[in-house]
Structures are given as C-alpha cells and as structure tokens.
C-alpha cells in the first residue's frame, strides 16, 4: 500500500525530497495508527468480559485515532486544515475517556461484576468458551 502510494505520488507530481519525506512519514504514521485500530478490534473479540474488552476499545480511540490524526497533520503541512485536525485531536483526548468512563460506570452501577484474578485465554480462541 505504502509503496504504491509513494510511487503514484512521485510519478504524478514533481515534489522534491522534502515532499517525499513528508509523504512517507505520514504514510508510516497512518499505518501504525491502523495497526493499533486493528489490534483494538482483535482485543474486543478475544478478551473474556465486558471490562477487559473496554480496555481494548480504549486502545482504538487513543493511540489509533491520534496516530492517524498526526499522520494527516504531517500530510497537510502548515495549513488551516492541520490546525483543525489538531483541534479534533485535542477534543478526542477529552471526549473518549468521558465516554469510556460513562459506559464503565453504568455497567458497574448495574451490578455487572468484573472477572478478577489470573485469566488465561489460550483455549478461548475465536470468542468465548
């Protein structure tokens, strides 16, 4: 994906080395962000109970979303768009923990007991056992 994007960019326009560096840095950052989003989704499927799944989902909206936003900021350079993206990133840092806390708190007040103690889930591959 990265290589095809890069070659398309190089062929289509006459950007210099700085532009090439910018594009490749943003591609790497976005790819890393996508990796964290994927890992978060796998975690939601693999983990055994509600609270532990919440941790996996939290990974998606912290580092996953932030890295994708950072990649887009690098892509757009010093423009108004990158200021807007920076603002979105800041708001995500405030809103996503609030939403996670609201969900966890409502589960706790509804008396959903978390599974505590050591837990190995090698045999529960592909979902709950």
């Amino acid at each position: 994906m990265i290589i095809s994007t890069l070659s398309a960019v190089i062929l289509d326009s006459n950007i210099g080395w700085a532009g090439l560096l910018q594009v490749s840095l943003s591609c790497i950052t976005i790819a890393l962000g996508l990796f964290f989003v994927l890992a978060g989704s796998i975690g939601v499927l693999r983990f055994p109970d509600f609270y532990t799944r919440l941790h996996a989902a939290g990974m998606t909206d912290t580092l996953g979303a932030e890295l994708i936003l950072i990649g887009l900021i690098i892509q757009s350079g010093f423009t108004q768009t990158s200021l807007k993206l920076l603002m979105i990133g800041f708001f995500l840092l405030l809103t996503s923990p609030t939403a996670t806390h609201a969900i966890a708190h409502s589960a706790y007040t509804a008396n959903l007991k978390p599974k505590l103690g050591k837990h190995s889930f090698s045999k529960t591959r592909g979902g709950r056992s």
Partner: protein
Amino acid sequence: MRHAFLLSLVMGTTWLVLSGYFIGMILTFGLISIVFVVWMTKRLAILDDETVPYLNIAKTCKYYFWLFIEIVKANIQVVKAVISPNSEISPTLIKIPLRSNIDIAQTMFANSITLTPGTVSVDVKEDHILVHALLKEMSNPEDFYEMHTRSAEALSISLKDN
C-alpha cells in the same frame, strides 16, 4: 470580568480556526455570536472557574506530552496482551486515594487514568477512585501517585499529603 475575557478569547480563536475567512461580514457575525454567548452565560450565572478553568498553557502542554508517552507505553503492553497466542491477563480492581476535593483536579486525574489503555476509572467517590486494571502490573499505586501529582501540577493545584 476575567472569565468573560478568557471565554471570548477562546471562542474567538475557535471561530478564526474553524472559519478561516477574514472578511468583514463574517468577522462581524463572529463578534456578535461571541458577545451573545458571553451575555447568555452571564445571565445563566455559570461564568465561573468551573466553566472557564484557567490553564497555564506551557504546564498543560508539558503534562499532555508526558501523558502521551505513558499512553504509548501502556498501548504497547496492551497490544502484547492482545496479540500473543497464550496471553494471560489478570484484571484487578483497586482503590486509588484522591488527594484533592477540587472538581477539576479530580476530573483531570480520572480522565488521565481512563485515557491510559489498560486502566479505566470505574467509580469516582469523595475520597477515592475505583480503577479497573487489565494487568496486575498496571495497578501499581506509585504510578497513580505520580500521575496524580503531575496532573495537579499542570493545573497549579497543591495536593494534600497522606
């Protein structure tokens, strides 16, 4: 007065960043909106420290930079737990004592805990936060102590010792 000034400053910056037009008419609309919102908050009597918290930008940025590094470290631990085929998790519930009863200090601390993957603040009480941790090594009280100290430092609030 100070609150009204700070609020209009924040709203003005937001307007300029989001609109990007520097035409007289649009700027006038922005000015009218800002004056209207400040008047409305004044009339609702919510123009105080809670609505407009005073943040030292340098200190807050420093704190968020430190928090970002912590988030990256915690993310790597959680990714390891998710991806390794024979992973073992040890979910823990732990009570973290709160050393301040100022709302914004508690909010900042609880928010930072939830923001770090692997720890979620489940319940906030008068004197403690109930935290659910994914791994037992993440429920180390000293780490939370440090986070509490740093988050209060970013807000220029002094904590009680216990």
